[in-house]
């Protein structure tokens, strides 16, 4: 084949661009972990990605052959850009976790497709020299398996967070899952030990492996629920990173390799940090022993005491220190703006208002921060739960808005409780507690919350947005 070398330095430029892109990824990620630089970091990483994509289209050569089908590639990029942009811009802030999960799944699917297409093209010389047991084949198979699991799992996580799919917990499920995992690894060993001339002879096994990986991804996420959802998304995120890195192995492409592994390791650390915030091990999360009733003390002790709006308004207006504990209920009700209005109103009256942010409140770590930031709540008012806990005994009123498990004292008292040991906002230390809740339903972890029966607790039932609205007008009328 004659090589059209229209530009002899193309490869050099391509490789330099990949280095630049990798550096931008690292710097971007670093800047993303600081509030002040986060936004620039994200844009920087996006530029790195853009450079890498353009340089690949222009300068990439495979055995001297340039990239073909360029009009189709550009069309595909255009379609993806429009759809991605519109979805990302239109979706409500409460649906953020689903969205991250969805986009993560897309990346996993792309990785799986690449593996599927590359498998029949493993060079026959390589097979003749070292058989099927070579790094190239291994990278393809792992990319296929991890990418597919990540895709299927992310789609299930998306469906669950969106309320389209319920939890499915069967006792024997973990054994089934382990068995499927063993089968998948068995497939890899089987394919790599076959004695063939051409890899395409083994394609039926690739389709089978794809199918089983889908099943595994689905079953892997199906039983996981409760506060564990964010952990799973983070874990699947790092899976996709690893799947992308497999592509880097395959094409000897350093940008894919660094980008993928960076996300793989950073995602794993993030996952572990989240698990630590809930005092659970990753194994526990994956095997899924959370929730599902269990032996947690179900006997209800004490009575529920309600408070009227006007009493609540007076109590709040004459307090010195108020702490708000937001939870998923706030997000669902879209009550962040009215909540901020309440805190501004109280501050005008000379009340000190702070927000206690539990790391796993909501459906994602930092979910509450994002939500409250949207409502313009100043950054300085958001205090992490560990920091605010010592302050709570001096707090006059603590308002729990749509949070449940993160204030559940069972985490400290009841060793049989599934959330035992999880750090919580020590709500019961406050002098008065007002709990806003839609009804007496249990939290996402489905366990009883003794805080609601505490002598200091008063309940305000109703949708968080309406309740807050009424409370605000009540305070204004005082």
């Amino acid at each position, binding site marked *: 084949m004659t090589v059209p070398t229209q530009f002899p330095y193309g490869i050099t430029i391509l490789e330099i661009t990949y280095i630049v892109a990798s550096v931008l990824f690292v710097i971007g990620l670093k800047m993303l972990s600081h509030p002040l630089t986060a936004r620039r970091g994200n844009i920087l990483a996006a530029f790195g990605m853009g450079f890498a994509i353009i340089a690949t289209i222009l300068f*990439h050569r495979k055995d001297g052959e340039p990239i073909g089908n360029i009009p189709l590639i550009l069309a595909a990029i255009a379609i993806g850009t429009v759809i991605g942009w519109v979805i990302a811009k239109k979706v409500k802030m409460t649906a953020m976790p689903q969205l991250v999960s969805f986009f993560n799944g897309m990346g996993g699917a792309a990785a799986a497709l690449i593996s599927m297409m590359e498998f029949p093209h493993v060079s026959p010389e390589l097979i003749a020299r070292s058989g099927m047991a070579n790094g190239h084949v291994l990278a393809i198979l792992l990319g296929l398996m991890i990418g597919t699991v990540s895709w299927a799992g992310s789609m299930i996580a998306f469906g669950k967070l969106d309320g389209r799919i319920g939890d499915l917990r069967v006792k024997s499920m973990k054994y089934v899952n382990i068995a499927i995992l063993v089968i998948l690894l068995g497939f890899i060993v089987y394919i790599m030990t076959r004695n063939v001339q051409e890899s395409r002879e083994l394609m039926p096994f690739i389709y089978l492996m794809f199918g089983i990986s889908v099943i595994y991804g689905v079953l892997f996420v199906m039983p996981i629920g409760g506060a564990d959802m964010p952990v799973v998304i983070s874990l699947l995120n790092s899976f996709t990173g690893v799947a992308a890195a497999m592509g880097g192995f395959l094409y000897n492409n350093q940008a894919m390799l660094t980008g993928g592994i960076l996300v793989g390791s950073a995602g794993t650390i993030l996952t572990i*940090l989240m698990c630590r915030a809930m005092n659970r091990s990753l194994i526990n999360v994956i095997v899924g022993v959370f929730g599902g009733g269990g032996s947690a003390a179900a006997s209800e002790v004490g009575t529920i005491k309600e408070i009227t709006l006007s009493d609540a308004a007076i109590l709040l207006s004459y307090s010195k220190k108020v702490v708000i504990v937001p939870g998923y209920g706030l997000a669902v009700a879209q009550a962040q703006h009215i909540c901020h209005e309440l805190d501004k109103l109280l501050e005008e009256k000379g009340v000190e208002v702070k927000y206690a942010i539990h790391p796993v409140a909501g459906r994602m770590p930092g979910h509450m921060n994002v939500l409250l930031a949207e409502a313009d709540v100043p950054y300085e008012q958001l205090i992490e739960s560990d920091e605010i806990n010592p302050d709570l005994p001096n707090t006059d009123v603590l308002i729990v808005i749509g949070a449940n498990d993160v204030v559940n004292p069972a985490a400290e008292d009841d060793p049989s409780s599934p959330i035992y040991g999880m750090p919580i906002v020590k709500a019961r230390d406050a002098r008065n507690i007002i709990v806003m809740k839609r009804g007496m339903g249990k939290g996402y972890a489905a366990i009883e919350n003794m805080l609601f029966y505490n002598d200091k607790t008063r309940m305000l039932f109703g949708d968080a947005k309406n309740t807050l609205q009424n409370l605000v007008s009540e305070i204004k009328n005082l």
Partner: protein
Amino acid sequence: MEQFSDFFLQHREAIFIVILSIFLGIEVISHVPAILHTPLMSGANAIHGVVIIGAIIVMGHADTTGSMVLGFLAVVLGTLNVVGGFVVTDRMLEMFKKKK
């Protein structure tokens, strides 16, 4: 054993990069405040969109209709991951900025 050493020598640079990148990833992220967990997860999510480069390469050398279709799909999905990921992250972070 021969296969292993063959594999190792052939890919030693990649293995180097992998190991160093693992440490880099851990180092870069371990001091992040909980407040930024969600945007960070989302930003990392966008970065693994680099998989799109692989999709472009595959599509660029596709010769049969079947592989064209799959390649096209891979590029679309990869782009979704990249564009959606970065735009969503930016949207989240935009909200952090407009205080005062």
